[in-house]
């Protein structure tokens, strides 16, 4: 392996030498790509909940009603109520809106930036590549949460800050992944053929490189969304994320901590369940996509 590279190691880890071991499911599941359907189904439910939140949620998720605080699970309050008397079920449903939106939107920019830098870096190599990779190393060597926390301090709370903070950090993974792919492609014969037939470099990159590397990046994006959900809820937990009273799984869990001792688990466990549900869905979907996009063949 080349010496410079933590980056190279990263590539080895994300892309094992041959690819048949990438999909992780028993054979009976793989046959009909059950994973894809289970994942899509689970995520679909969550997305539907987010879209139709006003229809699904039985109560107003934000208006406090201190008189009905900490009620247990009941028919009226499926998940009980929190310390300010709000319906936890309604808040979990509305939480899907804020958390999923940011998590998914926050994948787009790093995806595009990472893809562009990765392809250019891998194709041209040289000084551009060196600089890109040093930049990537700096981001990696910086404690992730400190970077995010500092950026949120700098820009103030809210969705936009979270979005920018995540972009600053997570483009690196895409860039490394794509760069590796691009380095392999660069040496393929068709590239030389294209160059000989007078196709412009940009043409080659857009028409031949992008389609070849994009499926890998899409699969990675699935696990990236999971990470984004984690970042958003952790930030909210530290009081630096989505501002209250907007329902958000992280701040709900943070608010629930001090009531665990009194036996009020609902405030913490239900939003935690939603987080885990989402990540399970994305994890299956990622595997299913790997299979479907034939990255494993």
């Amino acid at each position, binding site marked *: 392996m080349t010496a410079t590279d933590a980056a190279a190691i990263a590539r080895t880890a994300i892309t094992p030498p041959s690819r048949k071991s990438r999909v992780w499911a028993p054979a009976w599941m793989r046959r009909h790509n059950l994973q894809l359907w289970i994942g899509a189904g689970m995520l679909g439910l969550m997305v539907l909940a987010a879209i139709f939140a006003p229809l699904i949620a039985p109560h107003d998720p*934000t*208006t*406090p009603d*201190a008189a009905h*605080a900490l009620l247990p699970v009941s028919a009226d309050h499926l998940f009980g109520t929190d*310390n*300010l008397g709000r319906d936890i079920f309604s808040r979990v449903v509305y939480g899907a809106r804020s958390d999923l939106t940011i998590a998914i939107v926050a994948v787009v920019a790093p995806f595009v930036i990472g893809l562009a830098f990765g392809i250019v870096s891998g194709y041209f190599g040289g000084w551009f590549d060196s600089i890109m990779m040093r930049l990537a190393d700096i981001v990696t060597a910086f404690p992730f949460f400190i970077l995010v926390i500092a950026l949120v*301090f700098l820009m*103030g*709370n809210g969705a936009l800050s979270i979005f920018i903070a995540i972009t600053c950090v997570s483009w690196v993974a895409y860039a490394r992944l794509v760069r590796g792919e691009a380095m392999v492609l660069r040496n393929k014969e068709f590239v030389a053929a294209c160059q000989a037939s007078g196709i412009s470099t940009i043409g080659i990159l857009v028409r031949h490189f992008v389609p070849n590397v994009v499926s890998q990046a899409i699969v990675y994006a699935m696990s990236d969304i999971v990470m984004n959900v984690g970042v958003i809820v952790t930030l909210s*937990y*530290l*009081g*630096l994320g989505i*501002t*209250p*009273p907007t329902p958000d799984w992280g*701040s709900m869990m*943070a*608010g629930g*901590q*001090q*009531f*665990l*001792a*009194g036996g009020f688990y609902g405030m913490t466990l239900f939003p935690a369940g939603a987080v885990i549900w989402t990540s399970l869905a994305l994890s299956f979907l990622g595997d299913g996509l790997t299979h479907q996009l034939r990255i494993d063949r």
Partner: protein
Amino acid sequence: MKRLKTLCGAVALASTVALTACGGSGTGSGVAQSGGDLVMARADEATSLLPSVPTDNASIWVIEEIYDTLTVPDQSGKSVQPSLATSWTQSPDKLSWTFHLRKDAKFTNGKAVTSADVKFSIEQNQKSDAPFSFIDTVITKIDTPDAATVVFHTKKPWSPLPADMALYANSIVPADYGGKSATEFAKHPVGSGPFKFASWSKGSSLKIVKNAKYWRKGLPHLDSVTFTTVPDSNTRATQLASNQIQINEYPSNSSIKTLKAQPNLTVNMFPSSEIDYLSMNVRRAPFDDVNVRKAISLAIDKKAILQAVYYGHGTLAGGFLSPTTWAHNASIKPVPHDVAAAKAALAKSSHPHGFTTTIMVGSGSQDSSSEAQLVQGDLAKIGIKVKIKTLDPSAESTAKHAGNYDMAFGLYTTDIVDPDEIARFAGTYDGGSNTLYSGYKNSKMDALAATASSSSQQSERKAAYDKMQQIIADNVPYIPLFYVPGIYSYGKVKGFHPAATGNYFLEKVQLTK
């Protein structure tokens, strides 16, 4: 004294969780014993033991055990008593105070406490980079006619001076720090207080031992006191139950019920000068309209907040001077929760149909966040839409000082027993906070504060402070929300009774069997 609502929600995380696990262990009859090591667990570690440097309680309350001041607050926090000074008098022209020192007080390095030490000490706190230098700026000159007499000359007649001398930052250190640099001295501080500095292992514990030559005969009872740093309130509670520690500083509000249920522990709420408030920026529209401010004050259901967030531990506030001071105006009642009246007040204002605004909250404090959400709900009922803006505490304080916010929560406590400090801080524009960051300017307030501090007639002073509280109540630049007690839980301990100013008086504390 400064008391931050702890930032880290994360630290509080483990906290309440384990409470259910700590069963009480048997304690005996509670017979006092002499000697022994008292262990006190606190959330934060001291930052410095140099009296003129820190502002955090963790440091202040150790400093008060190691050093003496000229005067000390009494238990109620309403007046001061002799300490290193046995008596003090104001000159007939009221422009100087003469303090007579006791002759039997000695530093733990063996040297007697003299007027030269007093002069040096107060001058340290007058240096511009000392946080409490504003307390001593009124002093123009310090004379030491003899070893046992100190004369303070003041710019103007200044009756709070004896109370100012009880401030921890005015603690008496040896002149010239005993020949050491300030940094060196801070590592091995020397005072004349009931306890002597022994060791400080940063990150875990700080130990002080009995000063055998303490001038108050027969005190302290204890051989030593160890302050441990245990950020997690849950761990502190567990340690208290197993008698690993004897005093737990600041149990969390939500845990008090559980703590009280334990048979051998005492949870006590001592009167404290803490007041929680909601401030409005009167420099900005629509808060420049007193009717808007009155409407907000009427719309907030303070009782519900006290119950939901503080579990009822505290009282609804009226006047902005706490009931722990003699200057408290008891005739000002808490503003009632009255939505109809709030709507009526708003109707009279420049924004009869409400408006959109923001409320600033320090990040990491679940309690503040809950408070803000309740206020948000209350104000929505009269048509005021509030957005919550979360900032980390440091940025929050900068925004407050810069007047860059709409509404904000906060709390204040007094550091000296005389009402002068807090009346200026929370009542006047130039008292350090622009009237609690509201930007409310009223020359009457300045005049009243000046009258109160220059008069030596108690009744005249009281009348001035009463008026100040009435003006704030009438103009509502901020809403005093609650008078909050100091909460401690403790086990096998006798004689623990912190003053309203926070002083622990550990020399009077005994362990019980």
